[in-house]
């Protein structure tokens, strides 16, 4: 292992836990010790890492959801990017948690990791969320798996910016696909703290599901819009942080633009390298004061961008 600029490198982590927390959601706990502990201990919300899952076992036949059976046949080659939902420094060790969704061959393999396994990881990579200097309220808007980095952000915000009020919005198709470990309970829902993970940081939350099976019925962006309509806060005192599917991010960006609220979003792209050498992760960005656009790299210039920079594809 080399000592590198910016502390990013190829590291080895040990799996501490890998827990199924929903239909197809898991939470993976990785422990870093020795030289690896420090760089990851300093990882900022929104940064990510590239995991090598090539040598990891596939789940056995029956354990593969039918819609992923064909995909499961593909031998994987490239690493996969994941952000962190929690980073904890414990003495000379750092524990990093990743919330993930099982969508294809790599994430299927990821489910068979078990405590004690070691795994190769490159990170921490990219730029995290900018901190909310001069703001009074931070709104975290998560779509599906996007909750991961926003949980990490929630922890850092509440620890480092105790005077800022944080409100979390979490959207999903339906109640069972909300990627949270702790189930909603009615009392906390009534009190405005339905998501235990955010409540743990003292953060109130709003849940939206497309089918209304939990919380607000509709898109999380509609829920946000409604909330903004009634909150009575000044746009300049707020900041939105968002992570989720690109369609949702586009809507969040539109809302932020209309209401003139600062907004940071975390983008996703297929990434071959994650370290800025392949140019695969192009994100089309506006050039200030011109009609032209440039491609920035999601892995190096992002994954977090100012929402007003991005040209969303349709």
């Amino acid at each position: 292992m080399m000592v590198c600029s910016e502390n990013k490198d190829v590291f080895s982590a040990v799996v501490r836990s890998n827990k199924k927390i929903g239909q197809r959601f898991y939470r993976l706990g990785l422990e870093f010790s020795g030289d690896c502990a420090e760089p990851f201990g300093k990882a900022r919300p929104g940064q990510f890492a590239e995991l090598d899952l090539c040598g990891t076992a596939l789940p056995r036949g029956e354990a593969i959801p039918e819609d992923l059976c064909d995909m499961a046949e593909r031998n994987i080659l490239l690493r996969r990017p994941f952000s962190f939902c929690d980073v904890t420094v414990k003495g000379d060790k750092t524990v990093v948690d990743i919330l993930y969704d099982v969508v294809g061959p790599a994430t299927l393999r990821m489910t068979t990791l078990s405590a004690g396994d070691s795994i190769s990881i490159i990170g921490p990579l990219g730029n995290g969320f900018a901190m909310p200097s001069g703001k009074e309220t931070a709104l975290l808007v998560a779509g599906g798996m996007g909750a991961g980095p926003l949980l990490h952000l929630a922890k850092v915000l509440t620890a480092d910016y105790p005077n800022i009020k944080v409100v979390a919005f979490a959207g999903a198709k339906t109640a069972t696909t909300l990627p949270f470990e702790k189930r909603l309970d009615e009392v906390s829902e009534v009190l405005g703290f339905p998501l235990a993970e955010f409540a743990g940081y003292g953060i109130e939350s709003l849940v939206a599901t497309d089918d209304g099976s939990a919380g607000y019925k509709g898109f999380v962006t509609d829920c946000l819009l409604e909330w903004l309509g009634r909150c009575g806060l000044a746009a300049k005192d707020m900041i939105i942080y968002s992570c989720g599917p690109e369609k949702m991010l586009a809507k969040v960006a539109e809302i932020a633009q209309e209401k003139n609220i600062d907004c940071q979003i975390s983008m996703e792209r297929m990434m071959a390298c994650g370290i800025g050498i392949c140019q695969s992760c192009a994100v089309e960005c506006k050039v200030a004061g011109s009609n032209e656009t440039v491609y920035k790299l999601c892995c190096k210039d992002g994954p977090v961008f100012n929402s007003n920079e991005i040209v969303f594809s349709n």
Partner: protein
Amino acid sequence: MKDNVDISVDFAGVKLANPVFTASGTSGYADELADFVDINLLGGFITKSITLKPRKGNAPPRIVETDAGMLNAIGLANIGLDKFIKEKLPILERMTTAVFVNVAGETIDEYVAVVERLATERVIAGFELNISCPNVAKGGISFGTEPGQVSEITSAVKKAVGEKILIVKLTPTVTDISVIANAAVEAGADALSMVNTFTAMVIDIETRKPVLANRTGGLSGPAIKPIAAYLVNKVYNEVAKKNRIPILGGGGIRTASDAIEFIIAGASAVAVGTANFIEPDCTTKIIEGIKKYCVRKETNIKELIGSLGK
């Protein structure tokens, strides 16, 4: 085991500390990969393709993974010659590794213009002519599939390279690659680089559209290795050996064993591409592995090149 075994090679007159290059487009302009590898340990470094004007490249998605491979359709995104000279050359100048600039363009004049501007730069050991990029509408691969075209562009650029060496990078997607290799050599190529990627497509059956915005992309990675090794051996036997033209071989190399296969097949040096994405320091391991192999088998690189037995 003595680790300071000599695995240096003479590559068309350029002395390389070892036969391991990073391939064009898979290691940026050196600074990016430098976080993970000491570039100076490499035998050679090849830049991302440079064109006369900056190129934005293709819309995303630009890559998709396949079985033991990946498609890319970056579309020669690059900062263009001017910015390259201003921002990247100073970085490259600090390197002790042999540096090669990969050149692309839409017309022969563009290729020549880029090479002319760079031909006197001290740090540059030579040029790699990319006439095999499958991901651009104009230029690229269209120069590389027809012997007449290959000959024309090679001789035009050869006039511009001055003292530097000219490597011509071949596409594997032709009926007889030796015909193309021969055209390049006769027109003045000092070395051949092979292979570039294979045109390919992945279709998303949910949307019924190609996954890549560019529709097609170039297949690279371990999947293509046995085809590339065959082609290197073919060109070595039919063209390179008798003309004493070195081959920079590659396609799917991940390990020292892979690299040694290409060297035995006839490559004087090897280019590692896709594998850098997975293990950014794989080239270092490959260099060490080649040394160990030479010690264990009591051989040396010179004896190894093209030593494929009957």
